[in-house]
């Protein structure tokens, strides 16, 4: 299973880069994707997550070729 990971805004600064990819054999939750991609780095409070550009919760599962994005609260407008 191949999962593309993206980080935005302050979270990109915190992680140190904007993209990751993980290859894994079993189904993962979003929380497990975070732990694998960041080597269990502490998750900043209020971090949001989207899978394929829709908001999801941290317990949701991720499928092959999904794009998972982590980012801070949005501040547009």
């Amino acid at each position, binding site marked *: 299973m191949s999962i593309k990971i*993206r980080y*935005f*805004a*302050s979270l990109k*600064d915190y992680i140190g880069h904007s993209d990751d990819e993980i290859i894994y054999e079993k189904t993962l939750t979003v929380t497990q994707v975070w732990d694998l991609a960041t080597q269990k780095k502490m998750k900043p409070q*209020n971090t949001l997550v*989207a899978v394929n*550009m*829709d*908001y999801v919760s941290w317990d949701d599962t991720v499928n092959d070729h999904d794009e998972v*994005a982590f*980012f*801070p*609260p*949005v*501040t*547009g*407008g």
Partner: protein
Amino acid sequence: MPVIIKNTPFEPYQSLQQYEKKTLCQNNAIGASNIFIGTMRDFNEGDQIKIMTLEHYPGMTEKQLNNIVDKAHQQWTLIDSLIIHRVGDILPNEPIVLVATWSSHRGDAFDACRFIMENLKSKAPFWKKERLIDEQERWVLSNTDGYHKT
């Protein structure tokens, strides 16, 4: 119901006029137009701001904005709506966002415009980074409720 992300400055009143002339001028059912324009101010949290950079998530931003617009059109009887939102470097006094709604009756235009704007603030993936006059940079951590605090 266009959703437009622009990386260059735009003039909101000119954009509105052009859109109305091109798309809505034959529509005699319009009885109400409501317009919100958000511009960049030169202060935040007690500091003078020199420039602001707006980052977004291409694809997701448009998807979320279209979801918000769809919900507004389901909830109120709208004839049309328009969103224009800036990304990139923005200077004080430049427009950041335009939300316009058109309907036959004012309640729908008023309420839907507010709904779109408030949902944009909480769901559309944009992030502001401010550069202060002393060149220090900082991310805006969260949006406020939109009212002046004394």
